[in-house]
Every structure is written in C-alpha cells, then in structure tokens.
C-alpha cells in the first residue's frame, strides 16, 4: 500500500472467477473522512481483459471494460468468424506468459485501452487494425513458430511504443491544448 497526495493505493488478489489481480485507489482514507471516492482496476492476466470501476461518493459506480488492441485487430479481421481462442491469439498469449516481462505487460495493459479508445473514434480504424493484424500479429506469430522469440519480442515492443506515441501521447497533447 502506498500513500501519495492523500491517495491510498493497494493491491490484492480477489477470490474471483474472472479476475486474478485488483488494484484499488482511494481518494482519501475513508476512516478519516466521509468523502469516499475510489477507483478499482481488476485484471485477468491470462486474457488481458479487465474492468475499471469508478465509485464517487453518493453516485452509482461507473464501469469501463479495458481492451486489448491485438484482440480487437483479430476481431476486425475475422469479423463474424472471430474466435477469442483462435490460433493467433493463443500463440500470442502463450508468448506473453512465457517471455514478456511484467513491466512490459503492465505497460501494455495501461496503453492498450487508450489505443483502442482512440482508434475506435477514428474513421480509418479498420485499416489501422488491419495493419496491426498483418504487420504485428501475423509477423510475430510466424517468428514465434520458428522460435525467433527475441525478434518477435522486439516487434511487439516497438509496436506498443509506436502506437502509444501515435495515438495516446498525441491525443493527450491535443486534449491539453
């Protein structure tokens, strides 16, 4: 647990059917104040799917599902034939669990929902997702199949940084102007 600017942050493992990690952020210590605002982030580390629950004092909670843009790219590519347990996603999940560092995974989980949100609001979203499918997913899976894990990791990592630079940081800069 850490305390910063009157915020309390703690992590736990909920006894949940769907999620294996939970991070809670409290605006203030509820024991010391009646104002109780909090944010709860739950995650399934196998699928990358999660949920952000925001609860403000006296209001109903707000839920946002976090998303994985690699899954979204596959969804857009396969459309009606999409299967969440398809070969490509299974290979990438295996690779992530075996080789991707915890820091890089956390970065992806942080960046991915923002990328999906930005892409989904763009008119050229479909073509960008197709590009991710062909230039990242297909290429990484082929490299993994041939055991060229370091190259696959490099492409994955560069892609996360590239998308973050193009669609997250630029978006933050634009929104602050």
């Amino acid at each position, binding site marked *: 647990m850490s305390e910063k600017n009157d915020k309390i942050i703690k992590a*736990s493992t909920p006894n949940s059917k769907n999620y294996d990690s939970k991070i809670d952020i409290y605006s203030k210590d*509820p024991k010391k104040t009646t104002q109780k605002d909090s944010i*709860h982030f739950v995650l399934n580390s196998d699928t990358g799917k999660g949920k952000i629950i925001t609860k403000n004092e006296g209001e109903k909670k707000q839920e946002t599902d976090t998303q994985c843009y690699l899954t979204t790219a596959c969804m857009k590519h396969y459309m009606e034939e999409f299967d969440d347990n398809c070969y490509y996603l299974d290979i990438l999940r295996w690779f992530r669990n075996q080789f991707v560092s915890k820091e890089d995974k956390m970065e992806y989980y942080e960046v991915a929902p923002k990328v999906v949100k930005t892409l989904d609001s763009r008119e050229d979203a479909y073509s960008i997702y197709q590009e991710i499918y062909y230039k990242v997913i297909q290429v990484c899976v082929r490299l993994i199949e041939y055991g060229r894990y370091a190259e696959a990791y490099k492409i994955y990592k560069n892609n996360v940084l590239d998308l973050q630079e193009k669609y997250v940081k630029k978006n933050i800069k634009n929104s602050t102007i």
Partner: protein
Amino acid sequence: MENLINHIIDKIKIAQEWSKNINDDIYLELSKDEITNYFDKLYYNISKWNTYYHNKEIYKIISNYKEYESIISELELCLIDYDDIISITDISLCYYELGKKLTELAGGK
C-alpha cells in the same frame, strides 16, 4: 490491534445483516447466497481473532489472513455500489492495515 479487529468485526456484522435482506440477484459476479456465506464466514472466523491475539496465537490469524483478504477484495469489487451502506472500502482498507501490523508482529516475514 484490538481496536482494528473490533472495528472490522463491527463493520462486517453490519454488512452481514444487510446481505440477508438484499434481492436474490447477481451482484457483478456473486449471488446473494455467495455474498451472505462470505460475510457469515468472515464474521464467524474474524470474531475469534481477538482471542487468538490475547493468547499470543498470531500464527492462527496469519494462516487465514490471505484467504479472507481475497474474499474481502472480491466483496469490495462486487458490492462497491453499496459502500455508503456497508462501508466495504473501509473494511478492505482496515483489513489491509491489520495485515501490515501482523507483518510487523511476525518480524517482517
């Protein structure tokens, strides 16, 4: 330590009573029965912790701490909308604070 345990027990007792009268529904991913059973279990077991503490049987508390922490975490996830009534965030934070004290008592292990 005693005050903290008593505070958690008091809050769980309120939540336990509340859970008996909620609608027979699914709350995110828990049913009414699961919620009631969880609060019953927490109340029944944590109520013994002051006795364990007085008898210097801290290991009995520590051995169950993680299990109940996971349950409280899940209850907080599913019942956050009712925090104004059952103070589930308060229970969750106090329980975490208790965990820190237990760590200190156990010599930082």
